Protein backbone atom coordinates (compact mmCIF):
# COMPACT_ATOMS: atom_id res chain seq x y z
CA UNK A 1 0.00 0.00 0.00
CA UNK A 2 1.82 3.12 -1.28
CA UNK A 3 0.64 6.08 0.71
CA UNK A 4 2.02 9.15 2.40
CA UNK A 5 0.66 9.19 5.91
CA UNK A 6 0.31 12.06 8.28
CA UNK A 7 1.07 10.90 11.81
CA UNK A 8 -2.49 11.62 12.88
CA UNK A 9 -4.00 9.60 10.02
CA UNK A 10 -1.58 6.75 10.60
CA UNK A 11 -2.43 6.56 14.30
CA UNK A 12 -6.15 6.62 13.50
CA UNK A 13 -5.66 3.82 10.99
CA UNK A 14 -3.64 1.70 13.43
CA UNK A 15 -6.29 2.23 16.09
CA UNK A 16 -9.02 1.14 13.69
CA UNK A 17 -7.14 -2.07 12.87
CA UNK A 18 -6.57 -2.76 16.56
CA UNK A 19 -10.28 -2.25 17.24
CA UNK A 20 -11.38 -4.34 14.28
CA UNK A 21 -9.23 -7.33 15.26
CA UNK A 22 -9.80 -7.15 19.03
CA UNK A 23 -11.22 -10.24 20.76
CA UNK A 24 -13.27 -7.87 22.95
CA UNK A 25 -15.31 -5.38 21.00
CA UNK A 26 -15.29 -2.04 22.73
CA UNK A 27 -17.15 0.99 21.47
CA UNK A 28 -14.26 3.23 22.35
CA UNK A 29 -10.60 2.40 21.74
CA UNK A 30 -8.31 5.02 23.16
CA UNK A 31 -4.53 5.38 23.30
CA UNK A 32 -4.75 4.45 26.97
CA UNK A 33 -6.78 1.28 26.32
CA UNK A 34 -4.95 -1.81 27.48
CA UNK A 35 -4.44 -4.36 24.73
CA UNK A 36 -4.88 -7.28 27.13
CA UNK A 37 -7.42 -6.23 29.73
CA UNK A 38 -9.61 -3.91 27.68
CA UNK A 39 -9.34 -5.47 24.24
CA UNK A 40 -8.64 -9.13 25.03
CA UNK A 41 -5.38 -9.55 23.13
CA UNK A 42 -2.94 -12.20 24.25
CA UNK A 43 0.69 -12.31 23.10
CA UNK A 44 -0.22 -14.33 19.99
CA UNK A 45 -2.95 -11.85 19.14
CA UNK A 46 -0.53 -8.93 19.43
CA UNK A 47 2.03 -10.70 17.23
CA UNK A 48 -0.63 -11.40 14.59
CA UNK A 49 -1.81 -7.81 14.80
CA UNK A 50 1.70 -6.50 14.25
CA UNK A 51 2.12 -8.92 11.34
CA UNK A 52 -1.10 -7.65 9.76
CA UNK A 53 0.05 -4.05 10.11
CA UNK A 54 3.50 -4.87 8.76
CA UNK A 55 1.89 -6.47 5.72
CA UNK A 56 -0.58 -3.67 5.19
CA UNK A 57 1.93 -0.87 5.63
CA UNK A 58 4.71 -2.73 3.82
CA UNK A 59 7.30 -2.47 6.56
CA UNK A 60 9.72 -5.20 7.54
CA UNK A 61 9.72 -6.91 10.95
CA UNK A 62 9.16 -4.25 13.57
CA UNK A 63 10.79 -4.87 16.91
CA UNK A 64 10.34 -2.73 20.01
CA UNK A 65 13.63 -1.18 21.03
CA UNK A 66 15.11 -0.96 24.48
CA UNK A 67 12.88 -3.69 25.91
CA UNK A 68 9.76 -1.53 25.63
CA UNK A 69 6.67 -3.51 26.57
CA UNK A 70 3.66 -3.20 24.31
CA UNK A 71 0.77 -2.89 26.76
CA UNK A 72 -1.32 0.04 25.62
CA UNK A 73 -2.78 0.98 22.26
CA UNK A 74 -0.49 4.01 22.36
CA UNK A 75 2.57 1.73 22.72
CA UNK A 76 1.63 -0.13 19.55
CA UNK A 77 0.87 3.11 17.73
CA UNK A 78 4.28 4.49 18.70
CA UNK A 79 5.98 1.31 17.52
CA UNK A 80 4.32 1.27 14.13
CA UNK A 81 4.60 5.03 13.58
CA UNK A 82 8.28 4.82 14.42
CA UNK A 83 8.77 2.15 11.76
CA UNK A 84 6.68 3.78 9.04
CA UNK A 85 7.81 7.33 9.68
CA UNK A 86 11.31 7.12 11.11
CA UNK A 87 12.61 10.50 12.21
Amino acid at each position, binding site marked *: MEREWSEYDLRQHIRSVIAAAAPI*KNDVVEPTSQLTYDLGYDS*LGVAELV*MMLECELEVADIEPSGGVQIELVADLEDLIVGAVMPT
Partner: protein
Amino acid sequence: MTRECAASSRGSGSVLVTGGSGIVGSEVVELLRHRGWREVVTVCRRPARGSHEVVSWDIGKERPPAQLLRRWDVIVNAAADTRWTMSATEAHEANVTTVEALQSVIGDGTYVVHVSTAYAVGLKNDVSSIKLEDYRNTYEWSKACAERLVREAFPYAAIVRPTLVIGRRSDGHVARFAGVYTLLRGIAASTIPAVVSTPSSYLDVVPVDDLAGIIADTAGGWGDHNGVEVLTVAAGRTAPRVEEAVTMMVLALNAWRRERGCVPHDPPSIVSPDSWERFFLPFVRQHLSPRQRQIIELLRHYEPYLQITKPIEPTHEISDVAPCLPRSVCYWAGANERLARLPARPWIMDKRQGLGRRR
Protein backbone atom coordinates in the same frame (compact mmCIF):
# COMPACT_ATOMS: atom_id res chain seq x y z
CA MET B 1 -31.40 -26.62 28.51
CA THR B 2 -33.65 -23.88 27.17
CA ARG B 3 -34.74 -20.67 28.81
CA GLU B 4 -38.30 -22.05 28.87
CA CYS B 5 -37.18 -24.81 31.22
CA ALA B 6 -35.99 -22.17 33.67
CA ALA B 7 -39.29 -22.19 35.51
CA SER B 8 -38.29 -25.43 37.13
CA SER B 9 -35.28 -23.77 38.82
CA ARG B 10 -35.76 -22.20 42.21
CA GLY B 11 -33.82 -18.96 41.64
CA SER B 12 -35.21 -15.70 43.03
CA GLY B 13 -32.56 -14.94 45.62
CA SER B 14 -29.71 -12.45 45.50
CA VAL B 15 -26.77 -13.34 43.30
CA LEU B 16 -23.44 -11.68 42.66
CA VAL B 17 -21.69 -12.60 39.40
CA THR B 18 -18.01 -11.81 39.01
CA GLY B 19 -16.46 -11.56 35.56
CA GLY B 20 -19.71 -10.13 34.29
CA SER B 21 -18.23 -8.91 31.01
CA GLY B 22 -16.63 -12.23 30.16
CA ILE B 23 -17.82 -14.98 27.82
CA VAL B 24 -19.49 -17.00 30.56
CA GLY B 25 -20.27 -14.28 33.09
CA SER B 26 -22.19 -12.08 30.68
CA GLU B 27 -24.34 -14.99 29.48
CA VAL B 28 -25.06 -16.09 33.04
CA VAL B 29 -26.06 -12.56 34.08
CA GLU B 30 -28.47 -12.26 31.18
CA LEU B 31 -30.01 -15.65 31.92
CA LEU B 32 -30.39 -15.05 35.64
CA ARG B 33 -32.15 -11.75 34.97
CA HIS B 34 -34.39 -13.49 32.44
CA ARG B 35 -35.26 -16.09 35.06
CA GLY B 36 -36.40 -13.39 37.45
CA TRP B 37 -33.84 -13.54 40.21
CA ARG B 38 -34.71 -10.93 42.84
CA GLU B 39 -31.34 -9.24 42.63
CA VAL B 40 -28.53 -9.82 40.09
CA VAL B 41 -25.40 -7.73 40.60
CA THR B 42 -22.38 -7.98 38.34
CA VAL B 43 -18.77 -7.20 39.09
CA CYS B 44 -16.36 -6.09 36.36
CA ARG B 45 -12.91 -4.69 36.44
CA ARG B 46 -13.95 -1.79 34.22
CA PRO B 47 -17.70 -1.57 33.60
CA ALA B 48 -18.77 -0.24 30.22
CA ARG B 49 -20.12 3.28 30.26
CA GLY B 50 -23.80 3.49 31.09
CA SER B 51 -23.97 -0.04 32.50
CA HIS B 52 -26.32 -0.41 35.41
CA GLU B 53 -26.24 -2.91 38.25
CA VAL B 54 -22.53 -3.31 37.56
CA VAL B 55 -20.06 -2.69 40.32
CA SER B 56 -16.48 -1.82 39.53
CA TRP B 57 -14.04 -4.01 41.45
CA ASP B 58 -10.58 -5.12 40.38
CA ILE B 59 -10.77 -8.30 42.45
CA GLY B 60 -7.62 -9.12 44.31
CA LYS B 61 -6.07 -5.72 43.63
CA GLU B 62 -8.59 -3.54 45.48
CA ARG B 63 -10.68 -3.89 48.59
CA PRO B 64 -14.27 -4.89 47.82
CA PRO B 65 -16.61 -1.94 47.49
CA ALA B 66 -18.75 -1.45 50.58
CA GLN B 67 -21.95 -2.24 48.71
CA LEU B 68 -20.75 -5.81 48.18
CA LEU B 69 -20.17 -6.44 51.90
CA ARG B 70 -23.58 -7.90 52.66
CA ARG B 71 -25.40 -11.19 52.50
CA TRP B 72 -25.49 -12.99 49.18
CA ASP B 73 -27.48 -16.14 48.56
CA VAL B 74 -25.25 -17.12 45.66
CA ILE B 75 -21.98 -15.93 44.21
CA VAL B 76 -21.08 -17.08 40.70
CA ASN B 77 -17.36 -16.64 40.24
CA ALA B 78 -16.82 -16.35 36.50
CA ALA B 79 -13.88 -13.94 36.78
CA ALA B 80 -10.75 -15.36 35.19
CA ASP B 81 -7.94 -14.70 32.80
CA THR B 82 -8.05 -17.49 30.24
CA ARG B 83 -4.87 -16.66 28.33
CA TRP B 84 -2.64 -19.70 27.88
CA THR B 85 0.50 -17.57 27.59
CA MET B 86 0.52 -15.96 31.05
CA SER B 87 3.46 -16.14 33.38
CA ALA B 88 2.88 -18.15 36.56
CA THR B 89 2.70 -14.93 38.55
CA GLU B 90 0.11 -13.41 36.20
CA ALA B 91 -1.95 -16.59 36.23
CA HIS B 92 -1.89 -16.86 40.02
CA GLU B 93 -2.85 -13.21 40.40
CA ALA B 94 -5.68 -13.48 37.90
CA ASN B 95 -7.17 -16.82 38.87
CA VAL B 96 -6.21 -17.63 42.46
CA THR B 97 -5.85 -14.29 44.22
CA THR B 98 -9.31 -13.42 42.96
CA VAL B 99 -10.77 -16.45 44.73
CA GLU B 100 -8.92 -15.50 47.91
CA ALA B 101 -10.37 -12.00 47.66
CA LEU B 102 -13.90 -13.36 47.35
CA GLN B 103 -13.71 -14.71 50.88
CA SER B 104 -14.38 -11.21 52.16
CA VAL B 105 -17.79 -11.07 50.48
CA ILE B 106 -18.89 -14.63 51.07
CA GLY B 107 -20.90 -15.12 54.22
CA ASP B 108 -22.20 -18.17 56.10
CA GLY B 109 -24.66 -19.94 53.90
CA THR B 110 -23.56 -18.28 50.65
CA TYR B 111 -23.51 -20.82 47.87
CA VAL B 112 -20.52 -20.42 45.55
CA VAL B 113 -20.63 -21.52 41.93
CA HIS B 114 -17.04 -21.41 40.75
CA VAL B 115 -16.43 -21.53 37.00
CA SER B 116 -13.27 -23.53 36.38
CA THR B 117 -12.27 -25.50 33.27
CA ALA B 118 -12.37 -29.15 32.28
CA TYR B 119 -8.63 -28.85 31.67
CA ALA B 120 -7.85 -27.94 35.30
CA VAL B 121 -7.10 -31.65 35.81
CA GLY B 122 -4.02 -31.14 33.64
CA LEU B 123 -1.92 -34.05 32.45
CA LYS B 124 -2.49 -36.24 35.53
CA ASN B 125 -6.31 -36.04 35.46
CA ASP B 126 -6.21 -34.54 38.95
CA VAL B 127 -6.09 -31.04 40.47
CA SER B 128 -4.00 -31.97 43.50
CA SER B 129 -0.57 -31.33 42.00
CA ILE B 130 1.13 -27.99 42.68
CA LYS B 131 3.78 -28.62 40.00
CA LEU B 132 3.54 -26.58 36.83
CA GLU B 133 4.88 -29.44 34.73
CA ASP B 134 1.79 -31.52 35.56
CA TYR B 135 -0.34 -29.08 33.52
CA ARG B 136 -0.31 -27.98 29.91
CA ASN B 137 0.16 -24.32 30.84
CA THR B 138 -0.04 -21.79 33.64
CA TYR B 139 -3.76 -21.27 33.05
CA GLU B 140 -4.58 -24.91 33.89
CA TRP B 141 -2.15 -24.84 36.82
CA SER B 142 -3.79 -21.71 38.25
CA LYS B 143 -7.33 -23.06 37.79
CA ALA B 144 -6.34 -26.25 39.64
CA CYS B 145 -4.96 -24.12 42.45
CA ALA B 146 -8.18 -22.12 42.50
CA GLU B 147 -10.27 -25.30 42.75
CA ARG B 148 -8.22 -26.50 45.73
CA LEU B 149 -8.80 -23.14 47.40
CA VAL B 150 -12.56 -23.27 46.70
CA ARG B 151 -12.74 -26.66 48.41
CA GLU B 152 -10.80 -25.41 51.44
CA ALA B 153 -12.50 -22.06 51.82
CA PHE B 154 -16.14 -22.54 50.86
CA PRO B 155 -18.31 -25.18 52.55
CA TYR B 156 -21.13 -24.96 49.98
CA ALA B 157 -19.89 -24.81 46.43
CA ALA B 158 -20.15 -26.18 42.94
CA ILE B 159 -17.13 -26.29 40.68
CA VAL B 160 -18.18 -26.12 37.04
CA ARG B 161 -15.65 -27.39 34.51
CA PRO B 162 -16.54 -26.59 30.91
CA THR B 163 -14.43 -27.46 27.88
CA LEU B 164 -13.77 -24.83 25.19
CA VAL B 165 -16.63 -22.33 25.06
CA ILE B 166 -18.13 -21.15 21.77
CA GLY B 167 -21.09 -18.98 20.83
CA ARG B 168 -24.76 -19.57 21.53
CA ARG B 169 -26.36 -22.61 20.00
CA SER B 170 -29.09 -20.41 18.51
CA ASP B 171 -27.09 -17.70 16.78
CA GLY B 172 -23.40 -18.02 17.65
CA HIS B 173 -23.43 -14.87 19.79
CA VAL B 174 -20.59 -14.59 22.30
CA ALA B 175 -19.28 -11.72 24.43
CA ARG B 176 -15.63 -12.10 23.48
CA PHE B 177 -13.53 -14.23 21.16
CA ALA B 178 -10.96 -16.43 22.86
CA GLY B 179 -9.90 -20.09 22.85
CA VAL B 180 -11.17 -21.75 19.66
CA TYR B 181 -11.56 -18.34 18.03
CA THR B 182 -7.76 -18.03 18.06
CA LEU B 183 -7.68 -20.86 15.53
CA LEU B 184 -10.35 -19.15 13.44
CA ARG B 185 -8.53 -15.84 13.51
CA GLY B 186 -5.33 -17.53 12.45
CA ILE B 187 -7.07 -19.22 9.52
CA ALA B 188 -8.64 -15.94 8.39
CA ALA B 189 -5.43 -13.93 8.78
CA SER B 190 -3.28 -16.70 7.26
CA THR B 191 -1.06 -16.78 10.33
CA ILE B 192 -1.53 -20.49 10.97
CA PRO B 193 0.58 -22.40 8.45
CA ALA B 194 -0.71 -25.79 9.60
CA VAL B 195 -2.80 -27.36 12.36
CA VAL B 196 -0.65 -29.72 14.40
CA SER B 197 -2.97 -32.53 15.41
CA THR B 198 -3.73 -36.24 15.04
CA PRO B 199 -6.72 -37.92 13.35
CA SER B 200 -8.03 -39.16 16.71
CA SER B 201 -7.87 -35.79 18.52
CA TYR B 202 -11.08 -34.26 19.81
CA LEU B 203 -12.03 -30.59 19.78
CA ASP B 204 -14.51 -30.54 22.64
CA VAL B 205 -16.61 -27.39 22.54
CA VAL B 206 -19.73 -26.31 24.44
CA PRO B 207 -22.12 -23.52 23.44
CA VAL B 208 -22.14 -20.71 25.98
CA ASP B 209 -25.92 -20.73 26.41
CA ASP B 210 -25.94 -24.44 27.27
CA LEU B 211 -23.21 -23.79 29.83
CA ALA B 212 -24.97 -20.74 31.27
CA GLY B 213 -28.13 -22.83 31.63
CA ILE B 214 -26.30 -25.41 33.71
CA ILE B 215 -24.68 -22.72 35.86
CA ALA B 216 -28.02 -20.98 36.39
CA ASP B 217 -29.71 -24.29 37.26
CA THR B 218 -26.96 -25.02 39.76
CA ALA B 219 -27.26 -21.55 41.28
CA GLY B 220 -31.02 -21.96 41.40
CA GLY B 221 -30.74 -24.95 43.71
CA TRP B 222 -28.74 -22.95 46.25
CA GLY B 223 -30.58 -24.13 49.30
CA ASP B 224 -30.39 -27.80 48.40
CA HIS B 225 -26.66 -28.42 48.35
CA ASN B 226 -24.18 -29.72 50.85
CA GLY B 227 -20.44 -29.78 50.49
CA VAL B 228 -18.62 -29.24 47.21
CA GLU B 229 -19.73 -30.87 43.99
CA VAL B 230 -17.95 -30.92 40.63
CA LEU B 231 -19.77 -30.62 37.32
CA THR B 232 -17.95 -31.34 34.07
CA VAL B 233 -19.71 -29.83 31.08
CA ALA B 234 -18.53 -31.32 27.81
CA ALA B 235 -19.52 -32.99 24.57
CA GLY B 236 -17.31 -35.94 25.50
CA ARG B 237 -17.33 -38.80 23.02
CA THR B 238 -19.69 -36.93 20.70
CA ALA B 239 -17.27 -34.00 20.31
CA PRO B 240 -16.04 -33.48 16.74
CA ARG B 241 -12.50 -34.51 15.84
CA VAL B 242 -10.11 -31.64 15.20
CA GLU B 243 -9.97 -32.22 11.44
CA GLU B 244 -13.76 -32.29 11.19
CA ALA B 245 -14.03 -29.14 13.29
CA VAL B 246 -11.44 -27.26 11.23
CA THR B 247 -13.17 -28.32 8.00
CA MET B 248 -16.54 -27.09 9.29
CA MET B 249 -15.02 -23.80 10.39
CA VAL B 250 -13.34 -23.20 7.04
CA LEU B 251 -16.48 -24.15 5.10
CA ALA B 252 -18.56 -21.73 7.17
CA LEU B 253 -15.99 -18.94 6.81
CA ASN B 254 -15.78 -19.51 3.06
CA ALA B 255 -19.57 -19.49 2.69
CA TRP B 256 -19.59 -16.13 4.46
CA ARG B 257 -16.74 -14.90 2.25
CA ARG B 258 -18.34 -16.10 -0.95
CA GLU B 259 -21.50 -14.14 -0.15
CA ARG B 260 -19.33 -11.04 -0.03
CA GLY B 261 -17.31 -11.70 -3.15
CA CYS B 262 -14.15 -12.84 -1.33
CA VAL B 263 -11.98 -15.68 -2.58
CA PRO B 264 -12.31 -18.73 -0.31
CA HIS B 265 -9.47 -19.88 1.94
CA ASP B 266 -7.85 -23.25 1.51
CA PRO B 267 -8.12 -25.23 4.74
CA PRO B 268 -4.83 -25.44 6.65
CA SER B 269 -3.02 -28.76 6.43
CA ILE B 270 -3.32 -31.10 9.40
CA VAL B 271 0.17 -32.24 10.32
CA SER B 272 0.99 -34.86 12.94
CA PRO B 273 2.97 -33.61 15.96
CA ASP B 274 5.80 -36.01 15.14
CA SER B 275 6.12 -34.80 11.54
CA TRP B 276 5.85 -31.19 12.67
CA GLU B 277 8.59 -31.47 15.30
CA ARG B 278 10.97 -33.66 13.36
CA PHE B 279 10.63 -32.42 9.80
CA PHE B 280 8.62 -29.28 9.23
CA LEU B 281 9.69 -27.13 12.16
CA PRO B 282 13.48 -27.46 11.85
CA PHE B 283 13.17 -26.98 8.10
CA VAL B 284 10.86 -23.93 8.10
CA ARG B 285 12.65 -22.15 10.93
CA GLN B 286 15.49 -21.46 8.54
CA HIS B 287 13.19 -19.73 6.08
CA LEU B 288 10.82 -17.76 8.28
CA SER B 289 10.95 -14.09 9.12
CA PRO B 290 11.47 -13.23 12.83
CA ARG B 291 7.76 -12.39 13.09
CA GLN B 292 6.71 -15.70 11.60
CA ARG B 293 9.06 -17.55 13.95
CA GLN B 294 7.56 -15.64 16.88
CA ILE B 295 4.05 -16.68 15.83
CA ILE B 296 5.06 -20.32 15.36
CA GLU B 297 6.52 -20.34 18.89
CA LEU B 298 3.41 -18.72 20.38
CA LEU B 299 1.15 -21.19 18.57
CA ARG B 300 2.83 -23.98 20.52
CA HIS B 301 0.78 -22.92 23.54
CA TYR B 302 -2.37 -23.87 21.64
CA GLU B 303 -1.17 -27.16 20.23
CA PRO B 304 -1.92 -29.27 23.35
CA TYR B 305 -5.64 -28.52 22.91
CA LEU B 306 -5.54 -29.87 19.37
CA GLN B 307 -3.94 -33.14 20.48
CA ILE B 308 -6.35 -34.46 23.10
CA THR B 309 -7.13 -38.03 22.11
CA LYS B 310 -8.91 -39.15 25.28
CA PRO B 311 -12.47 -37.81 25.40
CA ILE B 312 -13.52 -35.80 28.44
CA GLU B 313 -16.02 -37.65 30.64
CA PRO B 314 -18.85 -35.24 31.38
CA THR B 315 -21.28 -35.18 34.27
CA HIS B 316 -23.40 -32.91 32.06
CA GLU B 317 -23.12 -34.06 28.47
CA ILE B 318 -23.78 -31.47 25.78
CA SER B 319 -25.11 -33.13 22.67
CA ASP B 320 -25.13 -32.09 19.03
CA VAL B 321 -22.35 -29.48 19.28
CA ALA B 322 -21.01 -29.85 15.73
CA PRO B 323 -23.69 -27.64 14.08
CA CYS B 324 -22.88 -24.91 16.61
CA LEU B 325 -19.43 -24.38 15.11
CA PRO B 326 -20.58 -22.91 11.77
CA ARG B 327 -22.98 -20.58 13.60
CA SER B 328 -20.16 -19.41 15.85
CA VAL B 329 -17.98 -18.83 12.81
CA CYS B 330 -20.66 -16.75 11.09
CA TYR B 331 -21.18 -14.67 14.19
CA TRP B 332 -17.43 -14.15 14.55
CA ALA B 333 -17.15 -13.13 10.89
CA GLY B 334 -19.96 -10.61 11.27
CA ALA B 335 -18.29 -9.08 14.31
CA ASN B 336 -14.80 -9.18 12.78
CA GLU B 337 -15.49 -8.25 9.17
CA ARG B 338 -12.10 -6.77 8.53
CA LEU B 339 -10.38 -9.99 9.60
CA ALA B 340 -12.91 -12.26 7.95
CA ARG B 341 -12.48 -10.49 4.61
CA LEU B 342 -8.66 -10.58 4.58
CA PRO B 343 -7.23 -12.03 1.38
CA ALA B 344 -5.75 -15.47 1.79
CA ARG B 345 -1.98 -15.44 2.08
CA PRO B 346 -1.21 -19.14 2.29
CA TRP B 347 2.14 -20.43 3.44
CA ILE B 348 3.43 -22.16 0.36
CA MET B 349 5.79 -25.09 0.06
CA ASP B 350 8.66 -23.80 -1.99
CA LYS B 351 10.67 -26.86 -2.97
CA ARG B 352 13.77 -24.75 -3.12
CA GLN B 353 13.31 -22.97 0.17
CA GLY B 354 10.67 -24.96 2.09
CA LEU B 355 7.42 -23.96 3.74
CA GLY B 356 7.47 -20.45 4.98
CA ARG B 357 7.06 -17.74 2.40
CA ARG B 358 3.71 -16.04 2.29
CA ARG B 359 2.42 -15.05 -1.14
